[in-house]
C-alpha cells in the first residue's frame, strides 16, 4: 500500500513538464536524494551503521492564488525492509496581508532557533548537532499555526509566535491538545558589503514537556533514553529530553570577499539552548536534579572554492538519566559531546559528496566513538532558495 503511494509520487514528480513556460502557474517540484555509508551510529541519529538512505525528500510548492501559497514536503525513510512516508511540511501561508504580516497553518518546521526551520539537505554536516538532536529531535516540525511580522525598519526585525500540537515533544501520557507555544525574535543586518549577521532569541513553552512523576510510568530503564515517551524506535524524531521551558539564542555570521559568495565564503554559527523544568520541582532537592540543562553548538564552514568546502563543529548537550529507588528518583546528569570535521565536494550547485569524521563522547555509556561518514546529497527538479 505504502509502496504504491510512493511510486505514484515519484512518477508524478518525474512527469513534470520539462519546459516550464511560467514559474508562476506550475508547482515547483524538487527531489532530494541522500545516501551514505558510515562506520558507526551517532546517538539519536536517523542514520544507521553501514549503507543507508538518509533524508529522501520530495517537495512541491506553488502559489495557490494571489492570497495563499502552499507547500508540501514529504520524506521517505527506509528502515531495513520497510519504508516510512512522513509528511514533514504541509502548510498554507498568506502572501497578501498588509503591514508585513504572515499567517501560516498546517504542518511546518518551527521557527525556533536558526537551524531548525531550514531543511536538512541545506546543512553543511551529515547530522544536526547533538544539541538539536537532544532538545528538538533533530528538526522540530509540528501541526499548528504561526503568525509573524517583519518590521519596516533598516535593521531586520522579525517577530513570530506559534501554537503547536506538541505531540512530538510530549513527555506525558495524556497531553493537552495545544501543547506548545513559542515566540521568536530575529534581528539582522550587514556589517559591511563583505559580512552580515543575524541574532535570534527563541522561547518555547511545552505544557506537556515536564515529567511530573516517574512512579506512575513503567519505564524501561535499560533503554538509551528512559524519559523519551514518543514511539521508542531508535530513529525517533522526538526530542530526547523535554521540559516545560526551552530558551534559545542563536547567532550567524557570514563573510565573503567583497560579498561575492561564489568563490570563497565563511559561515560561523552558534546556538545555545537551555531547558528548564525537565522534571517536577518536587524533586528539586534530589541529587543532580535536572532543573536547568544546557546545550550548545559552535560551527564554522569555509568554502575554499566553488567545488570544495571544509567545516568543523563542536556541540554539547546536557541530559539526565533517572533510576527509581521505590518512589525516589535518583538523577544522574550527563553530557554528550561531539566534535565533527567535514570535507565536501560540490559537483555543481545541486550535488554534494561529503566526508565527515565525528568524535562522540557519551557519558552514559562511558564511551568514545570515532565515526566516519561518506554521504551524498543531490537534488533534481526545482531547488528552493536557501535561507541565510
Amino acid at each position: 500500500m505504502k509502496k504504491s503511494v510512493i511510486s505514484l509520487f515519484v512518477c508524478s514528480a518525474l512527469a513534470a513538464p520539462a519546459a516550464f513556460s511560467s514559474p508562476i502557474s506550475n508547482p515547483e517540484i524538487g527531489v532530494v536524494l541522500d545516501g551514505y555509508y558510515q562506520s558507526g551510529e551517532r546517538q539519536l541519529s536517523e542514520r544507521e551503521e553501514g549503507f543507508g538512505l538518509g533524508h529522501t525528500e520530495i517537495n512541491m510548492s506553488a502559489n495557490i492564488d494571489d492570497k495563499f501559497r502552499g507547500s508540501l514536503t514529504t520524506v521517505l525513510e527506509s528502515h531495513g525492509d520497510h519504508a516510512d512516508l512522513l509528511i514533514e511540511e504541509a502548510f498554507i501561508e498568506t502572501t497578501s496581508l498588509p503591514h508585513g504580516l504572515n499567517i501560516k497553518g498546517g504542518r511546518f518546521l518551527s521557527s525556533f532557533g536558526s537551524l531548525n526551520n531550514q531543511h536538512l539537505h541545506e546543512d553543511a554536516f551529515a547530522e544536526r548537532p547533538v544539541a538539536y538532536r537532544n532538545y528538538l529531535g533533530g528538526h522540530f516540525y509540528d501541526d499548528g499555526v504561526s503568525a509573524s511580522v517583519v518590521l519596516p525598519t533598516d535593521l531586520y526585525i522579525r517577530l513570530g509566535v506559534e501554537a503547536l500540537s506538541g505531540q512530538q515533544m510530549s513527555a506525558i501520557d495524556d497531553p493537552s491538545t495545544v501543547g506548545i507555544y513559542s515566540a521568536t525574535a530575529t534581528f539582522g543586518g550587514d556589517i559591511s558589503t563583505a559580512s552580515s549577521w543575524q541574532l535570534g532569541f527563541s522561547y518555547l513553552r511545552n505544557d506537556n514537556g515536564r515529567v511530573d512523576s516517574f512512579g506512575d510510568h513503567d519505564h524501561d530503564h535499560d533503554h538509551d533514553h528512559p524519559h523519551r515517551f514518543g514511539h521508542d524506535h531508535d530513529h525517533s524524531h522526538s526530542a530526547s529530553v523535554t521540559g516545560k521551558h526551552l530558551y534559545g539564542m542563536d547567532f550567524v555570521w557570514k563573510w565573503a570577499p567583497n560579498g561575492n559568495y561564489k568563490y570563497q565564503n565563511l559561515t560561523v554559527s552558534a546556538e545555545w539552548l537551555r531547558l528548564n523544568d525537565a522534571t517536577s520541582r518536587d524533586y528539586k532537592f534530589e541529587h543532580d536534579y535536572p532543573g536547568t540543562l544546557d546545550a550548545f553548538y559552535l560551527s564554522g564552514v569555509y568554502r575554499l572554492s566553488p567545488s570544495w568546502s571544509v567545516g568543523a563543529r563542536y556541540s554539547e548537550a546536557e541530559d539526565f538519566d533517572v533510576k527509581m529507588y521505590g518512589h525516589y528518583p535518583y538523577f544522574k546528569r550527563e553530557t554528550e559531546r561531539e566534535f565533527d570535521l567535514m570535507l565536501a565536494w560540490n559537483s555543481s550547485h545541486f550535488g554534494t559528496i561529503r566526508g565527515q569524521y565525528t568524535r562522540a563522547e557519551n557519558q552514559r555509556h562511558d564511551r568514545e566513538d570515532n565515526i566516519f561518514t561518506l554521504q551524498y546529497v543531490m537534488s533534481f527538479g526545482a531547488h528552493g532558495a536557501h535561507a541565510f
Partner: protein
Amino acid sequence: MLSKWLKPATHNQQSRFAPKTLALLAIFAASYALPSHALNVFVCEPEWGALVRAHAPHANIYAATTSRQDPHYVQARPSLISQMRRADLAVCSGAELEIGWLPMLQARSNNAKVQDGQSGMFYASEYVAMLDTHDHVDRSMGDIHAHGNPHVQFAVKDMPRISTALTARLVDIDPDNARQYQANGIRFRGHWHRQITQWEEVAEPLQGLNVVGYHGTYRYLFDWLGIAQVGDLEPKPGLSPTNAHIHSLAQLGADAVDLIVYSSHQDSRPASWLQQRIDKPVLELPLTVEGDQSLTEMIDIVIGDLLKQTGKQTHLPVQ
C-alpha cells in the same frame, strides 16, 4: 499615531505597558505615520538601479548586489529581507537569474506588493527578445536557464522596451507622479535611440571579433555588435573552469581567438591560464554600473574597452 495611543491612557494604564511594548509601538508608529513617502525601490542588480534612477530620480533605491558580486550566488541575508519588506517596487533581471535567493526574499519579507504577479515585482527579461531559450533543459547541460540567457543588462536594443514597461509600472504604483515618470521615460528612450546609432557606428570595427568569454554574461552585447563568442572558460554554464577545459580551448588555436574576456566579479586566473597558452590579450569588462554611473556610461565603457584592447579604436566613443 503614537499620541493617539498615549493620550487616553491614565497613569494606571500606562504603567501596565512594559517599556518594551512602548518601544515597539513607537517603532510601529514612526514607520506608519510617515507622510506619503518617496517610492522605495529594491533592485536585484545595480544596472536596474541606474534605469530606475533615470525614470524616478526621487526614489529611494536599494541595490542588493554590487559589480563585484555574482548575481547567481547571493545570500538571502537579513538586510535584504528588511529592504524587500519596505519596497514598493522590486526590479530584477528575472529569467531565473536570481532563483537561488529572490524567492526567499519575497517569501520572508511578508510584503504583498513584491510577490510574483503583483505590479510591484518587475522582471526586465520579460520585455527582452530572449536568446538561448530551451525547450528542454537538463542539469547535465550545466546551470542553464530554460527561459533564456538572463544577463539582459546588455540587451541594448531592448532597453527602450524595458523603459516603456517600467514607466507603465511606475505610473501604476505611484499615479500621483505619473507625468514625471512618463516625461523621464520619453527622455530616456530618445537619448537611448540616439546612443544606439552612435554606438553601432563606433563599434563597427568590432564586427567579426572572436572572443573567449567567461559565462554568457555578454551574450546580448556580442549578438548586437556582431562579436562571436567562440569559447567559454566555463566547461558548462555555472561550472568552474578546469585545466582540461582550458587545454581544450587552447586547441582552438591563436588564429581563432582575438580576445579573452571576463567580468569584474569573476576570478581572473582562468583567463590568464588561457592567455599563457594562446598569448591573446585579456580584458576585464564591467558586469554592471559602478557607483552612480548611468546605463549609457556602462555601455560606453564596455565598447570603449573592447576597442582599446583590440587596437581597433579608430575614433573614441562619444561621451
